[in-house]
Every structure is written in structure tokens, then in C-alpha cells.
């Protein structure tokens, strides 16, 4: 087995999801005594690149001239596939984020690889190679057997614990590659940089509001609670459709799928489409003045009450423990 992990820096450093993927790759490689190569697309800070040694990488390929702005899935995907061929990689790991989904599909097609997206744990076995993933929007779990010589996996956010497990050696290789310039097919006109989207999917705690919040003017207390907990904020679909909160905060079947350690939902009834986006959360707290709210069935803790009363009390209690 030869493991290749595809990572991208963010503002020069590496976010949790990247470290989680490296930890996954190291643990996977460890199953049969092989090593991890990481391919970094984009410009990384030299010091941050060195730190990746702690997460089990043996060889780090840096490709600062390859850019994912714009995200040109076929162009970049084909380039990654070429590198994977050169490295003779047999398991290639991407993040199940926006970039990872696009690139992994193209890479798998290019290499005629077996593909499993949204995996959340190490394979059950590596021979045959079997790994679990969520299906039917989280209502069931399928075990997939991947039988082609090369396997491509995408790892769900927040699913694998980051572990420091250095390999016996570590070296950095600088690649001078750049993408072909003639006829790229996609021309970048403008970019609205908001690391926001990854912040929500990587957040360990999320505080979310639904229609029961009754209006955007009531979000102050919710944001205050989120601030105290170091949490990201989110919302249900009707809230983003109404324009109370930005679309990037919408969690649900057609919005973002998240799996934080703690999901606090205020004034959200718990429609199936919403549940599809949050069911992977370790702990769900539902606050709703309607005792019949469906979310109580999926929640671990529930409070029947109005956010106007509950939020200030919640804030007060959290302040007490945060000291």
C-alpha cells in the first residue's frame, strides 16, 4: 500500500481537516507497514510545512505554483492523477469538502480507481478493502468493497481524531510544476474569500437558529452564546431563504452537512431535510417551545421553552463555568 494525502494550505497553515486526513493516512498506512506521502497544493508557510512531520508524513511534496483559484476540477484533477501515478500511490485521500469532492471524482476517473466518498473511519479490512460510509442522507451505513488496484477516499470533516505520530523520517520535496496556461477552460473573474464555509464544517460546536427565532433581530443572543462557546453559527433552510442569515450558514440536506461535537438548535422543528445535515453530530441539544417538535426525537437533550428566555439563561450558565 502506498498512501497519498492531498492537502491544501489555508493562509499558509493547515486547518484541522488537513491534520485529520494526515492522521487518517498515517493510521491507514500503519495497518500494513507503509508510509504516507502528502501532496500540498498551493503556497504553504515553510515553518507550517515542517510541522507536518509530527502528523506522520514521510515525504511532503510542495506544489506552490499549482493553484486552486479558480478551482478547475479537470485540469487540477488530471495533474494530481499524474503525480499519483509517479508516486505509484495505491490509496489517495482527499477531504470531503468542496475542493476534495470535485478533485477526487476526476482523479478516480483518470486513474480508473475505486472511489468511496464521505468515509468516517478506517477500513474494516484492507484485503479485500472495505470501508463504511453514510448513505440515504445518513439513514443507513453501507460497507463498500473497493476492488480496483487504486482506491480514492474522501474523509468526512470532524470524523477522525488528530494524532501526533511522527514517521521515522521526513523530507520536503519542492515541485516546480504549474498548470498548463493555454486554454484552461475556466477564467476567474472575481473571488469572495470567506474561509467561513470551512469554519462551519470544521467547527466542534455549532449554535443554530430556525424559524422559531422569529426574526434576524433576535440573533444577538445566539451569537453571544456562540462566541462564549467558541462555536460557529448556523441556521435552518427557511431562515436562509428568508434572508435572515447568509446561505453559507444553512445546514441541511441541500446546505452543509456537519458533524460537530455539539449542535445546539434553537427554534428548529427538525424537518427530515434539516436532520440530514446534522445527524452526525455527537450531541444534539434542542430548544423549542413546541413540545411536539420532531427534533426532540433526534436530540440528546431537550428544553421546552422560548429562545427569548432560554438563551439569556444559557449565556449566564456558560459564563459561570468559563469563569
Amino acid at each position, binding site marked *: 500500500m502506498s498512501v497519498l494525502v492531498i492537502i491544501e494550505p*489555508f493562509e499558509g497553515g493547515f486547518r484541522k481537516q488537513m491534520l485529520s486526513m494526515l492522521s487518517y493516512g498515517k493510521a491507514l498506512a500503519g495497518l500494513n507497514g507503509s508510509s504516507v506521502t502528502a501532496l500540498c497544493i498551493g503556497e504553504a508557510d515553510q515553518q507550517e510545512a515542517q510541522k507536518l512531520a509530527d502528523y506522520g508524513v514521510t515525504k511532503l511534496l510542495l506544489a506552490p505554483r499549482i493553484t486552486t*483559484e*479558480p*478551482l*478547475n*476540477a*479537470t*485540469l487540477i*484533477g488530471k495533474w494530481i492523477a499524474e503525480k499519483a501515478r509517479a508516486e505509484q500511490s495505491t490509496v489517495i485521500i482527499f477531504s470531503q469538502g*468542496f*475542493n476534495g*469532492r*470535485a478533485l*477526487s*471524482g*476526476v482523479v*478516480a*476517473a483518470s486513474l480508473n480507481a*475505486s*472511489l468511496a*466518498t464521505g468515509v468516517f473511519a478506517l477500513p474494516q479490512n484492507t484485503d479485500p478493502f*472495505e470501508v463504511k460510509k453514510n*448513505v*440515504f*442522507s445518513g*439513514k*443507513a451505513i453501507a*460497507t*463498500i*468493497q473497493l*476492488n480496483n488496484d487504486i482506491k480514492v477516499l474522501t474523509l468526512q470533516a470532524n470524523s477522525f481524531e488528530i494524532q501526533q505520530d511522527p514517521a521515522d523520517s521526513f523530507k520536503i520535496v519542492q515541485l516546480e510544476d504549474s498548470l498548463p496556461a493555454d486554454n484552461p*477552460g*475556466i*477564467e*476567474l*473573474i472575481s*473571488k*469572495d*474569500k*470567506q*474561509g*467561513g*464555509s470551512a469554519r462551519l464544517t470544521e467547527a466542534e*460546536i455549532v449554535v443554530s437558529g430556525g424559524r422559531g427565532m422569529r426574526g434576524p433581530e433576535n440573533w444577538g443572543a445566539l451569537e453571544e452564546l456562540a462566541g462564549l*462557546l467558541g462555536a460557529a453559527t448556523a441556521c435552518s433552510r427557511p431562515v436562509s431563504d428568508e434572508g435572515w442569515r447568509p*446561505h453559507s450558514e444553512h445546514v441541511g440536506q*441541500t446546505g452543509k452537512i456537519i458533524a460537530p461535537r*455539539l449542535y445546539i438548535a434553537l427554534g428548529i422543528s427538525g424537518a427530515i*431535510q434539516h436532520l440530514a445535515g446534522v445527524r452526525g453530530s*455527537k450531541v444534539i441539544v434542542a430548544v423549542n417551545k413546541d413540545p411536539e417538535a420532531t427534533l*426532540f426525537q433526534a436530540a*440528546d*437533550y*431537550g*428544553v421546552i421553552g422560548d429562545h427569548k*428566555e432560554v438563551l439569556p*439563561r444559557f449565556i449566564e*450558565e*456558560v459564563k*459561570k463555568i468559563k469563569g
Partner: protein
Amino acid sequence: MKILVCISNVPDTTTSIQIGPDGKSADLSQVKWIINPWDELALTRAVELREKHGDVFESLTVISVGEKEADGNLRKALAVGADRAIRVDTAATGNFQVAHQIAELVKKEGFDLVLTGIESSDFNGSATGFILGYLSGMPVASNVSSLTVEQGKITLVQETDSGRETVSMTPPLLAVVQKGIAIEPKIPAMRGIMLARNKPLDVVQAVEYNSADQITAMELPPPKEACKMIDEDNIGELVQLLQNESKVI
């Protein structure tokens, strides 16, 4: 320009999933089949573009890979505004298989704008569109939340890990679309349903393709314990439980 929208059939969102007797598939015998929600948004956008720029878009075709049961939703797509439907006559068994079948037709007929939903609510693979783009040799716009047309050029918004990009592309191209591409899915009106009866639904033969991969087991997620209710006057207890019982704060 010729538009192609790829649609797949999935169990209705409210369906309760039960594992079949073989232990590796869902029991779909009682299922109501709907058009995959993301594909429905793609179709809606395509119909809007066709209505707004009739001079630019000469035709809107929809395609599905599936057996006879798939005809119902193809007719619905025709009723919503597609001109023609194609069904590749074989059960849809996986993303590579579906992409291979559709790629054959894309290469044969030369579509200018191909739209696919970013993922399907049955297997949540989010790969078919990207695989199809690669197999068809078309540039692919990823995670598209907006698509507009101006003087032969197509402007799209791609959502990426580092933010939102506005890009310009010249057809032919494939766009993998997601939330934002359309707001409310179009519902067929009576007139559309009547007209759909006379629109062509071509059934074509599948090409040979076998995947080496298979699902070897399927299970339901572990059942959740009943929700612990806390009185609204006692939020202190909730915070204490979160800290000491489930240890999440």
C-alpha cells in the same frame, strides 16, 4: 446551444429506510421515487434559462439511467419544460456506471451545456458529475450556485473551500450544481403535463460496463437513546450535563 440535464431517481426524502433480507441493500419495494432534489434544481435552472434565452438555447434534453420505472420522472421533467427525454435502459448501479452510460450520449450528440446535481440523496457519492465531465472531455465547473448567460459566455459561481469564485466559461462545459442554482423547484402545470404526452422519450441501449466494487453490507445507525428533557428554569443542569456527562464543553 443544446442543454442536457442528468436526473436520477431516489427514494422520497421522508421514506424510512429498512434493510432488506440480504443484509446489504435497502428494502425499496414500498418506496415512492422522486427526482433527486439537486437534479430537480438543475432542471429548474435549465428551464428558466430556456424560457429567458430561447434564442440561445435551442433544446433542453433530460437523461436518466434506469429501467421502465424511471419513465415517470422523465415525463415529469418533460412536463416541467424539457423538450426531449432519453432513458438508458439499464438499472443505475453506481456513479461510474451511470457516468459511463451518459458519457456515451454526450460524446455522440454533442451537448453544449450539461448540468448535474452535486450529489444524490440515496448514495450521497457526489462524484457522478465530476466523473462524467472527465469522461466527456469537457471542462467542469464545480459546486455551482449560480449560472447566468450573456452573449455566448457563461458566468458561474463556484463554491470552494476558500470562498466563492465568479468564473467565466465558454461552452461546451459541464456544471455540477448545488444549492442556490435555483430556489424553488418547478412544479409541472396541467398544460405542461398535457404537452409532455407528445414529447419524445427515447429509450436507448446501454453500453457494456462493469464495476469491480460492491456494497457488502448495509446497516442502520445505532439507535439514539431517548432525549433527556431539562426544565427551562434549570439551564444550569443542562450546562452541567454537557460539561460532565457528555463532555462536549
